[in-house]
């Protein structure tokens, strides 16, 4: 940080000046010299234009008194030469002349003269002119200095921003914005206009996408974006659910940002397995869900991130079905607030009309982009035009591979077992999967199997909770109405839990470069007719929601125990 203050320019009145007097007339020169010396200044004299230019270069005078008509080089040419030599410094030139016709005076000004002094010389007038020009000269120097200082600071700032951007890119661009189902628009320096777009695959498959718009610009905006990106990626890859991540980001921003600074954001959780999207939005314009050719606007329901404390932060989300080809648009206010030369906003109406017109078009994203740019015209929408389109598609078409986690190669435990039992309230409120996954990941080498293990544990746990404890029927999810009903019932039953529990037992038996993880999950429900699964087709029964086929494909053993409320699986892994 540069903190030294600007060098102080000399005071206008203090100190003698160096004044160049150029006049071919000896007696006039003598008189002028006497006047100027009596006023306390130093004098340098020149006898013609050529001499004046040479003395100017050698002596660097502060102010020049220049006769117009002189031999060898006249005052006009000398003035031009001197102005050229002085560059952007202000060297006032006062023409000494008894010329009185307008044409000659104009010639003096054209040559760079700043004022005139006519004969006979009046000492008082000359003094007034010298003082006035000196003040102007000092002011000019101060401005120059401040300008240079601003330019220096600016250059410094730009360099700092470049470094900060590199750091931010390293933090933020580890995600999956490149997946085939995402199109996005983001200024290269967006972190400094406060816009952030993050996308990350979840270990279970599916992805989180977050679009944020911080108040303010420059470094203050970037500072909030760093921890936001860290939390987003860290928690998403560890398998945390969207509300938990939002709560954490909100708390972090609330803690680090000063009052009055916040982040408007929309965050979505896209599930490619059960084809759904979960949306939280605080402070950004409505997101657009294009569902089967229909537009559903998903408005912001919450305060932006970083305003509420943890106790009153609301992480509740809305969940929608999304079939393959359905799309969700999220954007910052840069789109609707893009202004044209008449200072009109692009506006929500225009946006909605365009979306409805091209709702079936695969080109919609680009149409919006082009239309906004065309609307803004020369004014340009500026830097903060940020948007993303997320399309539902079969997961294997996304074109991304599970991020290769560097093998920790540590000395974590190879042989261990644990059990973890959640009851009533905790069942409803707490998601134990990230925690359990963390523990399993301590096994050296196991990190590469993060995704599969997450899938197994979360399948088993949600079966136990949703079907075992909450007695929800997954076939409900087959229709749109049922889909909503399913989540409504789930919410309702979560609030009425008595004497309910889910117990997870984990046991790991390590061998060289591999091992067997045994997971046993028991719930307080009444069980179900598990034999039926073994006899019928894997996906045909009402139990398809239990993902048994998936479990069987991942585990070497899947075994249910009477009356169907206990299940045990064995997962074998090898490096």
């Amino acid at each position, binding site marked *: 940080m540069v903190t030294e203050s600007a060098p102080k320019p000399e005071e206008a009145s203090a100190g003698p000046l160096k004044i160049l007097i150029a006049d071919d*007339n*000896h007696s006039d020169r003598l*008189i002028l010299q*006497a*006047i100027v010396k009596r006023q306390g200044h130093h004098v340098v004299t020149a006898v013609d234009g050529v001499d004046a230019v040479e003395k100017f270069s050698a002596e660097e005078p502060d102010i020049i008194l220049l006769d117009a*008509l002189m031999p060898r080089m006249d005052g006009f040419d000398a003035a031009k030469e001197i102005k050229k030599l002085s560059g952007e410094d202000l060297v006032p030139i006062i023409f000494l002349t008894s010329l009185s016709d307008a044409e000659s005076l104009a010639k003096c000004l054209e040559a760079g003269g700043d004022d005139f002094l006519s004969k*006979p010389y009046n000492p008082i007038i000359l003094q007034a002119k010298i003082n006035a020009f000196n003040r102007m000269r000092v002011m000019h120097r101060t401005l120059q200095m401040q300008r240079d200082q601003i330019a220096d600071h600016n250059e410094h700032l730009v360099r700092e921003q470049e470094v900060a951007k590199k750091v931010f890119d390293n933090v933020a661009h580890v995600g999956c914005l490149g997946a085939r189902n995402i199109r996005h628009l983001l200024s290269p320096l967006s972190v400094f206009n406060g816009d952030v777009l993050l996308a990350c695959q979840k270990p279970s498959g599916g992805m989180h996408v977050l679009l944020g718009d911080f108040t303010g610009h420059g470094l203050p905006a970037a500072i909030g974006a760093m921890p936001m990106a860290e939390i987003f990626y860290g928690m998403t890859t560890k398998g945390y659910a969207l509300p938990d991540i939002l709560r954490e980001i909100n708390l972090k921003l609330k803690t680090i940002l000063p009052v009055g600074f916040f982040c408007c954001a929309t965050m979505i959780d896209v599930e490619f397995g059960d084809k759904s999207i979960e949306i939280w939005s605080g402070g950004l314009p409505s997101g657009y869900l294009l569902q089967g050719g229909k537009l559903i606007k998903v408005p912001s329901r919450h305060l932006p991130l970083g305003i509420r404390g943890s106790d009153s932060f609301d992480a509740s989300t809305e969940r929608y079905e999304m079939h393959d080809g359905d799309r969700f648009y999220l954007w910052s206010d840069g789109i609707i607030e893009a202004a044209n030369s008449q200072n009109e906003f692009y506006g929500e109406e225009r946006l909605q009309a365009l979306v409805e017109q091209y709702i079936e078009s695969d080109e919609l994203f680009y149409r919006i982009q082009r239309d906004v740019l065309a609307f803004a015209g020369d004014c340009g929408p500026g830097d903060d035009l940020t948007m993303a389109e997320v399309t539902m598609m079969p997961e294997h078409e996304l074109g991304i591979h599970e991020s290769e986690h560097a093998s920790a190669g540590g000395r974590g435990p190879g042989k261990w077992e644990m059990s973890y039992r959640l009851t009533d309230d905790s069942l409803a409120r707490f998601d134990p999967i990230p925690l359990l996954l963390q523990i399993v990941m301590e096994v050296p080498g196991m990190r590469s199997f993060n995704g599969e293990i997450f899938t197994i544990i979360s399948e088993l746990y949600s079966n136990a909770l949703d079907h075992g404890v909450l007695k929800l029927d997954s076939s409900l999810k087959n229709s749109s109405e049922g889909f909503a009903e399913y989540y409504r019932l789930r919410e309702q039953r979560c609030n009425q839990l008595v004497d309910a529990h889910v117990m997870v037992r984990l046991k790991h038996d390590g061998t060289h470069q591999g091992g067997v993880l045994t997971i046993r999950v028991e719930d307080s429900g009444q069980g179900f007719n598990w034999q039926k699964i073994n006899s019928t087709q894997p996906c045909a029964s009402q139990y398809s929601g239990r993902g048994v086929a998936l479990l069987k494909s991942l585990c070497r053993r899947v075994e249910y125990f009477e009356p169907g409320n206990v299940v045990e699986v064995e997962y074998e892994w090898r490096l």
Partner: protein
Amino acid sequence: MTIETHLNDAVLSDLREMMEGEFEFLVTTFLDDSAQRLEDIQHQLDSGDSAAFGRACHSLKGSATNLGLPRLSELCRQGEELGYSDQMDAAGELVGDIKEEFEQVTDLLKDYV
């Protein structure tokens, strides 16, 4: 005509005060310089270069004004005008007047010093 027609006493006494000990040197310098400028004026008159004649008169006018010599200054102004408007017919007589006035102020200034 009084002395005031030739010498402006207010200007001269200001100069004397301002120049301190240098006043006499200033007057001598002026007289030497002006003698040369008169030669220049005569030369331009003879050559018939009216613009150069005007410039030469302009130059002497300036220093005469500074020294507080109203009539010499006024005659030079007329010469400047004749030169710039290319009316050289009347210039010969005017140059005679300028020379005469210069001789007169030379005497008066020497007395004044």
